[in-house]
């Protein structure tokens, strides 16, 4: 953790140690190659990119609080052969800058990576203006935009490495940097693939973001009760891993999707499309935040309240399994 004024406790509520990996990983990548530029809109001390700034100040650009300008500037820089990493809160990246992302990054096929951090309701009591529960719906409807969702520190590193040479833009849905560790080492995060974190035969949980760690814990709870749950980490939402979804449906006979997002058109929507188009009727449920604006509370309180917890996910899985057997 970088030094901070010990009298300040507010910082603790919005960021944690894993947020530092992003700046460190990018700085390390930039040690090796000269085509990396990192940008932020007055948030480097929130998203940990001050680590990059300290190591490569000549390739760090701060636009001030002007996110749309940042997106379009990134496009201009990328048009000259750079890989540009822009960073801001997910609510601003996906909603305020949706059009710049579509028109200047995706339509123009620019290799810009959108580090969209504090997604979901991880801004807690900052409220709806700072929540991003619509971003998967928005971004996965943009042609030419890859959508990744690393779930912990090591998978952030893995995703940054795996996508560095991708020719088009990438949207990285990131949490607030306090995610529980899922991977003990840096995994290969091959674009377009879910990763199977736990084998099981009774049900498949497809989870993304913070829901991955909670789903693994939910699987532990259910295992004690004799139910074997397969857990897939939806590390990429677009392109979606059709094979993993259909194999899970075929081999386990039921699917539960879990995400920190509005229930409409996010991960669950993407999974439902694959299942429906394959013509297979299986027990299926989207487990997400409700279709309403979230309450304010510290993030951990919100997750508990909305059931995005091991217990909540285990309950949802059990009710799906009960329906399956009846």
């Amino acid at each position, binding site marked *: 953790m970088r030094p901070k004024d010990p009298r300040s406790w507010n910082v603790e509520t919005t960021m944690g140690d894993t947020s530092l990996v992003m700046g460190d990983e990018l700085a390390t990548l930039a040690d090796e190659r000269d085509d990396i530029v990192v940008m932020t809109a007055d948030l480097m001390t929130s998203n940990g990119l001050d680590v990059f700034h300290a190591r490569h100040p000549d390739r760090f650009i701060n636009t001030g609080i002007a996110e749309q300008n940042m997106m379009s500037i990134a496009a*201009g820089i990328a048009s000259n052969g750079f890989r540009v990493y822009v960073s801001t809160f997910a609510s601003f990246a996906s909603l305020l800058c949706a059009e710049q992302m579509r028109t200047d990054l995706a339509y123009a096929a620019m290799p810009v990576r959108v580090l969209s951090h504090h997604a979901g309701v991880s801004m807690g009591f900052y409220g709806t203006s700072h929540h991003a529960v619509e971003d998967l719906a928005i971004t996965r409807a943009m042609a030419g935009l890859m959508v990744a969702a690393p779930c912990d520190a090591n998978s952030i590193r893995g995703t940054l490495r795996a996508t560095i040479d991708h020719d088009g833009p990438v949207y990285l849905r990131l949490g607030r940097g306090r995610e529980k560790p899922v991977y003990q080492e840096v995994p290969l995060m091959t674009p377009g693939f879910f990763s199977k974190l736990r084998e099981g035969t009774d049900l498949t949980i497809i989870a993304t973001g913070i829901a991955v760690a909670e789903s693994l814990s939910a699987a532990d709870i259910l295992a004690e009760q004799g139910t074997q749950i397969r857990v897939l980490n939806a590390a990429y939402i677009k392109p979606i891993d059709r094979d993993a979804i259909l194999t899970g449906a075929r081999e386990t006979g039921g699917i539960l999707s879990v995400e920190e997002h509005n229930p409409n058109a996010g991960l669950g929507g993407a999974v439902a499309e694959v299942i429906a188009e394959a013509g297979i009727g299986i027990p299926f449920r989207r487990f997400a935040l409700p279709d309403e604006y979230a309450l304010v509370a510290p993030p951990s309180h919100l997750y508990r309240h909305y059931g995005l917890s091991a217990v909540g996910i285990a309950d949802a899985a059990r009710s799906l399994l009960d329906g399956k057997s009846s």
Partner: protein
Amino acid sequence: MGSAHELDDDILERFRSTDEHELAKRAEWIRLRTIDLVEIAGSGHYSSVFSCAEMLSVLYYSTLRLKPSDSRWADRDRFLLGKGHVAIGLYPCLADLGFFPQSWLEDYTRLGSPLGDHPDMTKVPGIDFSSGSIGHNLSVGVGMALAARLKGQDYRTLVMLGDGELNEGQVWEAAMSAAHYGLDSLAAIVDANGLGLDGPIEDIMGIEPIELKFESFGWDVESIDGHDVQQIRCAFERPNPDGKPRVIVARTQKGKGVSFMEGSPYWHLGYLGPEDKEIAIREIQSRTD
């Protein structure tokens, strides 16, 4: 500069033409070709092209360093058409210079054509960045100028904006950042024709005084008559002061060159009937004979 590209025959060097009569004639040719292309599409932005025809002529036939045989050549000057609906006036120039085959123009806007109302960089050689959503391109130009600095390249970045475009907030974010970063390879050109789709800009959402606004944002400012080829040429050639972006506010007339379009808001988007088309062509041709 002293770089190898000076020896390359394919390169069109900067400031290559000083023949103002030829450049003025080329502007009239752009007007005529625009009328031809609108005929294919069935509607088009005549008057928006006509207000900047002289500037497009000077940019592509004198000011910009270009390489038509290699449209992605790293050291080319960049030109961004913020007012992307004027692409119809730019396409004939790009075809004429050899960026793409003349035959592409025959299918302008037809199914599968690379040439739409707004320019698409992924389809059209010679387009340095896509546009269409007014207000983005000055930011993109800031990025290109920053990239030139990062790579130590000497290309210039010129961005043409409409005056109505200045109503967009992102333009002023870009203006603020260009001055903050001290981008002296960047120039903005405002085609101040005074009219938007719904009428006079000063009635819809006033933007004057344009010059003072940019000046207060830290830009070097020059105001010119945007139909005077000599003034345009000198303004486009003049280098930026060290450490400052530069804006050229070109005072123009919307629909310039066709009497019944001049100063009229009705031809922002339109389609000339056969008789009016003949009148328009005659008026334009009378100045080139």
